[in-house]
């Protein structure tokens, strides 16, 4: 039996050595002898490490001290000078009285394990850097839609985000989106690709092409999804510009057809008025010609606004004076249409910072729309457009109210869209789009309330304190000064 254990001891695939209380090696197995020589009787620290004195944190000393096993990692040096990284386990050898009289030390070569660990660490580090540095937004979400990981591009654009719901980070929503690609992936395990419009932490709209894929655990269950989004805003802008050019051409062509009809009509009335000796018809025809020439002028200005961008020139605007000027500019047309265009100024509204030409063009545009709305309403009489201006801190408020034809909800919601016009053939869909753009660039807004058959009220609010960003931005070219 003893012989058999001796054989086991000898052939163990690790270094085995037995130490006495003075750290002398009193026994060693075959592999120990192979790599460290016949060193029985020498101190272990000399044999294993070439030292002249005991090691700090010596596991053999610890086992002698407390009588229990200890474990540590050490680096040994063989007689051939090779360094061997080992995992050391010690175990006490007791006498009949239970005293530790010797300690057996087992050294397991862990170089291969250490090499693999290092390779794994490097690989993880490389993947981590790749995850961090890849130039698109990457996030990992759990089934609860909470973001568990996010790369640098994501964090820089959408904020820290970890622990937040994807819908609040990506879309600033309080509840999940109607279509959720992550939930789709959790449900069917298939990669989803789709396009989204998301909002950055600073409120910037970003078009992204988003790929969502499942992340499986060892059991093959989907435990999370990874979402990779590529910013395609610039591509979309380019597409939008190309589409806009096409729409602009179509819109202009459509508008010109309407103007030609008006001019044809005017000329017809003038000619037949003279032929029939009907002065009132000549007058009506001539007014029609004048109106459509004015429309052409307005259309050309709108196109210029749309086509060219220029920096805003911020100056103090005398609000009451500007409103009076806008009303004056529409007065002739109002008289021709037999409707009242009036101005109401509350107290002394004072000045508001803004680009005078752009703000004037914006207000003129809205007043023109109100006049058109009254003219289009053939179902009642006594039409009026009232322009009011008042200071309502922190805003300067210009209101344009008419009792014209009014708008239904659908029209109301679309009036600020590019190329949308409720005027059929006579509109280009540029005017209110540009007006809204001007208000927006000045840090203000245009609100509209309207009811079909009753009329509309447009309220333009401009901030009394100029917003710093507006000085940097650019506004559509305004040619209001050319009027």
């Amino acid at each position, binding site marked *: 039996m003893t012989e058999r254990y001796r054989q086991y001891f000898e052939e163990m695939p690790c270094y085995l050595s037995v130490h006495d209380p003075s750290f002398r090696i009193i026994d060693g197995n075959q592999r120990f002898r192979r790599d460290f020589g016949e060193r029985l009787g020498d101190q272990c620290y000399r044999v294993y490490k070439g030292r002249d004195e005991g090691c700090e944190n010596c596991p053999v000393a610890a086992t002698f001290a407390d009588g229990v096993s200890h474990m540590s990692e050490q680096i040994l040096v063989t007689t051939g000078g090779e360094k061997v990284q080992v995992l050391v386990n010690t175990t006490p050898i007791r006498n009949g009285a239970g005293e530790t009289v010797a300690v057996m030390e087992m050294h397991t070569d862990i170089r291969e394990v250490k090499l693999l660990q290092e390779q794994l660490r490097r690989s993880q580090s490389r993947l981590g850097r790749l995850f961090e540095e890849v130039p698109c937004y990457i996030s990992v979400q759990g089934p609860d839609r909470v973001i568990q990981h996010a790369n640098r591009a994501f964090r820089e654009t959408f904020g820290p985000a970890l622990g937040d719901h994807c819908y609040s980070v990506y879309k600033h929503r309080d509840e999940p989106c109607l279509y959720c690609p992550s939930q789709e992936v959790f449900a069917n395990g298939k990669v989803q690709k789709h396009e989204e419009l998301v909002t950055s932490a600073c409120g910037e709209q970003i078009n992204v092409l988003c790929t969502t894929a499942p992340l499986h655990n060892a059991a093959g269950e989907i435990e999370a999804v990874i979402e990779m989004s590529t910013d395609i805003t610039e591509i979309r802008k380019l597409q939008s510009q190309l589409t806009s050019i096409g729409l602009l051409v179509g819109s202009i062509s*459509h508008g010109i*057809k*309407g103007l*030609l*009809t*008006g001019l*044809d*009509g*005017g000329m*017809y*009335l003038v000619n*037949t008025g003279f032929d029939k000796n009907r002065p009132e*018809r000549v007058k*009506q025809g001539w007014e*029609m010609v004048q*109106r*459509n020439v004015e429309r052409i002028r307005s259309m050309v200005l709108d196109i210029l606004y749309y086509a060219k961008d220029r920096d805003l020139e911020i100056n103090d605007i005398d609000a009451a004076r500007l409103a009076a000027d806008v009303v004056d500019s529409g007065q002739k047309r109002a008289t021709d249409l037999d409707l009242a265009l009036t101005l109401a100024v509350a107290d002394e509204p004072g000045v508001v910072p803004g680009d005078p030409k752009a703000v004037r063009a914006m207000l003129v545009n809205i007043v023109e729309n109100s006049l058109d709305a009254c*003219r*289009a309403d*053939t*179902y009642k009489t006594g039409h009026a457009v009232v322009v009011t201006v008042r200071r309502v801190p922190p805003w300067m408020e210009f209101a344009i109210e008419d009792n014209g*034809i009014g*708008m*239904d909800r659908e*029209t109301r919601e679309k009036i600020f869209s590019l190329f949308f016009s*409720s*005027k*059929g*053939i*006579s509109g280009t869909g540029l005017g209110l789009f540009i007006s809204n753009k001007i208000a927006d660039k000045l840090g203000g807004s245009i609100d509209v309330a309207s009811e*079909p058959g009753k009329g509309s009220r447009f309220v333009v609010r401009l901030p009394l304190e100029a917003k710093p960003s507006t000085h940097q931005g650019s506004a559509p070219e305004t040619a209001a000064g050319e009027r």
Partner: protein
Amino acid sequence: MSGQRVLVVDDDPDTVIYLTAFLEDHGYDVRATNDTVHALDTIERYHPEVILADVVLPGRSGLDLLVTIRRDPRWRDCAVVMITGMDEILQHDCASYLVSHEGMAGPDGVLGKPIDPGAVLAVLAELSRRRACTKLEECR
């Protein structure tokens, strides 16, 4: 053709003024409205023989008006001519709109903007001729 009742439906006041004056000068009896809802009221009272309708109107479109008229047997003799500045779009829209209303006849004519006065008179004369033929056949 003299005295033929024509209803003009267009939201552009200049077009309405022009067409009304032009058609009255050529002996037509003309009424005009600015939208589809009022057009339907006028049809009830006025019984037009021809409707000249713009396609893009506030609220319900001119195509909507066409379908409403086609569906109502009382107006089966009423001809509808669409007027638009968007000729190509109209053709496409008309085709797809009427496909969705199976078996429904399209407009009796399409006139583009700017309006060609000669074309308007030609379409109305043709419609008047067709009406006369139909009546003749009915008499036989």
